[in-house]
């Protein structure tokens, strides 16, 4: 992650701006008047380096690639506080998702966990496989021990549905 230096950046990219705004839905970022209410409740400490209202402002000016390369969109916990607090219905949270979508689309660097989880779900249908817990009393707890039914095996149908959805990309 690097922060943006607008003095050395390439300059606004209006085509990319349009793409980002479209993905964020209804071109809402145009309505932002930089009141910073969104940033007032943002819990992500990392987003203090480039606050939600600054992200909106930069995208609105066309510095989309710069914001994506800052990696800041990946620090958003999707808590939706900014979305509810914004008096203009701009929803920085949705813009963060739009920027992440664009990062995937443009082949930019994406945190490894996202691709790992996506392929895990594609293979197994779930984010994780059943895990045992070792309790403080040194007892191994698992589903069987708790008397719970077995977890179903990954279904071929699920994977095919997933793959078909990907074809629409």
């Amino acid at each position, binding site marked *: 992650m690097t922060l943006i230096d607008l003095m050395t950046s390439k300059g606004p990219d209006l085509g990319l701006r349009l793409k980002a705004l479209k993905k964020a839905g209804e071109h809402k970022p145009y309505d932002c008047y930089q009141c910073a209410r969104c940033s007032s409740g943002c*819990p*992500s*400490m*990392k987003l203090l380096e480039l606050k939600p209202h600054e992200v909106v402002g930069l995208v609105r000016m066309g510095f989309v690639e710069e914001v994506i390369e800052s990696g800041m969109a*990946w*620090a*958003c*916990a*999707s*808590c*939706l*506080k900014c*979305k*509810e607090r914004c008096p203009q219905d701009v929803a920085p949270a949705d813009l*963060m*998702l739009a920027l*992440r*979508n664009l990062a*995937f689309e443009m082949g930019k660097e994406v*945190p*490894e*966990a*996202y691709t*790992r*989880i*996506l392929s895990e*779900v594609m293979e197994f*249908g*779930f*984010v*994780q*496989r*059943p*895990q045992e*817990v070792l*309790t*403080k*009393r040194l*007892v191994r*707890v*698992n*589903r069987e021990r*708790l*008397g*719970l*039914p077995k*977890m*179903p095996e990954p*279904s071929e*149908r*699920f994977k*095919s*549905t*997933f793959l*078909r*959805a*990907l074809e*629409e*990309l």
Partner: protein
Amino acid sequence: MAVRYALFLGCIIPNRYPSIELATRNVAQALGMELVDMKGASCCPAPGVFKSFDKFTWLTIAARNLCIAEGLGCDIVTLCNGCYSSLKEANIILKEDATLQDKVNGILRDFNKKFYGKVEVRHFIEVVQREVGIDNLRRFVKRPLRLNVAVHYGCHLLKPKRHREVKSVERPTFLDELVEALGAKSISYRDKMMCCGAGGGVRASNPDVALDMTKEKLKNIKDAGADCVISPCAFCHLQFDRGQVEAGLQLNVPILHYVQSLGLALGLEPEKLGLYSHAISVEPILKKLAY
């Protein structure tokens, strides 16, 4: 109570916290609620990760899960705010947007499924409110939960407001009331409505960023003198419970899922609620409750 719900487990509950699943099954039985397993269901899918990737893929997989409940002919109940928000939002989008619904059905058709929009997605908390009701709930209580509790709602139980019945996102009270109905005292603490830190894929991709938030929240809870946290979300539960170990915090704040606290108040044995398999021991609160 003759009610029937399709139990949507998701990933975290069956794989990481089967204790919550056990508690759910036993509490449902005690309340006379029938839970039907959703055979073939998958990850909801994880909204933070999937929406970051591509909206249509997210929608298709969620639709597939919704179809399974439609086939069973009952509404869905979930015990994770993530699954709740993912399935509920997908359900709303698909019902409202005919073009998207057609596109998704075009894919599902190949796998003998079709989305009709016949079921609702409910959180366990809503089900307790609807089917039991807060006054009735008090009557069910056999062992009052005499504890000081830090109530944590979790972001997506409340937001987006547009899709939720309760319209207060900064000062809601319904969960505090449901906790107090069990005999506990909901204490106030600093920045109560703050996120646990896990959402948006941040827990997996940026653990330090996530734990920063978790640490702050748990410190505020500890400072307020809470005996434990009660949360209605399996993902927040995971973040608070495992997070204390991952961040090396020496706070030892026990975490209960709401369904587990309800089970205790109903007089179910701690073993039946999986209370011995948390990362942070719940023994101090069991002791206080004289188990």
